[in-house]
């Protein structure tokens, strides 16, 4: 089927791709795109931004205080204990990592699937990924008893002649998350280069010009560059796709490879990935709704974009629900008394409330999106996206804490209560996230302008010429449709 034709055109081919219906309003021109997107970074910030930034900074301060106190006194200032050696720390880690999945997913997978509507939101989502992963990385670093020895986890030559244990899922984490962060960062920056050039050229003051100019690496839109650029982008997308899937799979190995009832489960990798995408989309949604309201980017983040995302949330949410059901079924069907107890205990034990919060937020609330009326209502989707964020946090809490607090020997069963420092570290990480985000939306073009421009009506040469070139070697589709036919 024809992959390339003016975006506004009729739906061609047997498959009605989501991306092929009209996404962007007809009046949008390249110049308008540049104007709308870049002007956000050019205008003086509104008081709303300052308020938001101020609050974020406040929470960042909370983080600083909590972590300093933690380092001074030791892990004991948290509620962790034996048997619940991991609690909020790893819960937050997994939660953030999950959130960090949407970005690369949207950029990479939707890119490979040629979902053109992604262009409006991928920059945004990628940024979110990077900040989320930063927050995620924070927790493994501070949750260890002796953070000043954390470098033991890296394969560095040392006088002890000791090496890390490559059998440990925790070490797999180090590499997986590290790789994920690096690749996402590269992916993001590569995507940014042309738009930084735009920002450079639109800038008035020499200072701004210099700053953006430096960041744009002297990009001059040369087509000889575009050629490699697109290929690089395609490859990065290709690499990121399995990476995204691998990262949360590896994170799930922390649990799946253990012997603890409720952790020791083969379903974890797919289940975690689905959950991650789920929570990631929810977070993107929350942020987009705000940004689009505050910065008037309604033209590019259209209601249809939001609806499409809601559909994905409906699917992933149901997947997660299915995973919950499967877990229960397997536990009961296995006849393993420990497994059975672990799951009955989740639903009816001391932490029953956490379990039911998780279930209602993650499985029930997205079901609203079966109905177009709610799928397209801003307030509804905002509330639901928040609910999902909460629910996914509780999912990790349920998996980690309720599985640990009652495992094999009843004599060692315990109960976990968070302390103020636990709360401080969590809220603090939110502060870190939103601070970074505030800076991002203020200084960086938050929509991939060149990609949007490329799919505007009439942005590409017309059909006739195109058909001619089809058969010529070295043809490249623009990024939005960058999969070579053959």
């Amino acid at each position, binding site marked *: 089927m024809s992959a390339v034709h003016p975006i506004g055109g009729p739906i061609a081919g047997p498959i009605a791709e989501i991306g092929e219906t009209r996404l962007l309003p007809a009046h949008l021109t390249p110049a308008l795109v540049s104007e709308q997107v870049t002007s956000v970074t050019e205008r003086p910030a509104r008081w709303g931004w300052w308020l938001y930034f101020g609050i974020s900074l406040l929470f960042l301060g909370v983080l600083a205080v909590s972590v300093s106190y933690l380092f001074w006194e030791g892990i004991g200032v948290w509620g962790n204990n034996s048997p619940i050696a991991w609690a909020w720390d790893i819960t937050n880690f997994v939660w953030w990592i999950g959130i960090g999945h949407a970005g690369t997913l949207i950029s990479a997978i939707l890119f490979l699937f040629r979902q053109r509507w992604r262009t409006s939101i991928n920059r945004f989502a990628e940024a979110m990924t990077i900040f989320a992963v930063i927050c995620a990385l924070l927790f493994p670093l501070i949750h260890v008893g002796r953070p000043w020895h954390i470098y033991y986890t890296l394969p560095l030559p040392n006088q002890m002649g000791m090496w890390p*244990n490559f059998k440990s899922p925790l070490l797999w984490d180090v590499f997986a998350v590290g790789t994920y962060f690096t690749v996402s960062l590269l992916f993001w920056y590569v995507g940014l280069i042309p738009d930084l050039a735009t920002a450079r050229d639109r800038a008035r003051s020499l200072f701004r010009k210099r700053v953006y100019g430096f960041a744009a690496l002297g990009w001059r839109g040369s087509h000889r*560059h575009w050629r490699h650029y697109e290929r690089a982008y395609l490859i990065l997308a290709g690499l*990121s796709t399995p990476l995204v899937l691998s990262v949360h799979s590896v994170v799930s190995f922390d649990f799946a490879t253990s012997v603890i009832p409720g952790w020791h489960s083969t379903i974890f990798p797919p289940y975690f990935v689905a959950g991650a995408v789920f929570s990631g989309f929810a977070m993107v949604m929350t942020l987009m709704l705000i940004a689009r309201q505050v910065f008037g980017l309604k033209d590019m983040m259209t209601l249809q974009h939001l609806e499409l995302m809601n559909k994905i949330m409906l699917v992933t949410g149901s997947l997660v629900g299915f995973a919950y059901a499967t877990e229960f079924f397997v536990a009961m069907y296995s006849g393993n008394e420990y497994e059975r107890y672990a799951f009955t205990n989740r639903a009816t034990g001391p932490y029953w409330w956490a379990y039911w919060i998780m279930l209602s937020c993650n499985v029930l609330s997205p079901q609203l999106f079966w109905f177009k009326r709610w799928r397209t209502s801003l307030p509804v989707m905002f509330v639901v996206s928040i609910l999902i964020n909460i629910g996914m946090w509780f999912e990790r809490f349920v998996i980690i804490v309720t599985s640990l607090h009652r495992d094999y020997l009843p004599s060692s069963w315990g109960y976990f209560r968070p302390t103020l420092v636990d709360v401080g570290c969590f809220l603090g990480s939110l502060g870190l996230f939103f601070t970074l985000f505030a800076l991002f939306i203020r200084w960086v073009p938050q929509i991939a302008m060149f990609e949007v421009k490329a799919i505007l009506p009439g942005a590409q040469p017309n059909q006739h010429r195109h058909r001619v070139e089809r058969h010529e070697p070295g043809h490249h589709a623009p990024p939005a449709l960058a999969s070579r036919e053959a």
Partner: protein
Amino acid sequence: MTSASAVSTRPVLLLAEFETPDAIIGAAEHVRNAGYQKWDVHTPYPVHGMDAAMGLSDSRLGWIVLACGLSGLLAAVSMMQWMNGHDYPLVIGGKPPAAYASMVPIMFELTVLIAAFGATFGMLGLNQIPRHHHPVFYSERFEACSNDKFFISIEAEDAQFDPNATRAFLEGLTPSYLELVEEAEPSPAGHPASRAEGMR
């Protein structure tokens, strides 16, 4: 910027501006057919079909990435086998010190990591960026390139370049704007002045 200084200047390139993708792709084909070598097309976003129009070959980036990926894989395997299997073998959970199964995740991660480096820096390398200083930037008008205008630049270096002939040739392509970008001979003063003379 137009500096009326007396310093001797030399032309570096001719810059032709076009309004639409169709125009630029057509123009590109002509320039290619005219047999120019050192020329380029500047667009705010990738205009597809341009490779053919400019007669460019396929990108070699893929091979670089493949090489990087494989070396990443090799590095991972050898590192883990040597550290856990050879240099300090320890009994962990009753398993053999050098167990491949448990090393798969990190093999994968390092492969991807190094490959990604290959893709990014390979691209930068092939494009020879970062290059912050380039003659086209002398042109005020060129700033529109990152917004919505399309440009063709033919460098003075090119064997066929002749200030008048080439200019005539470009005029023939009916650009919306044409400009000769000149640059001062590198002087001890360092920062070269430039003169861009517009015409319609």
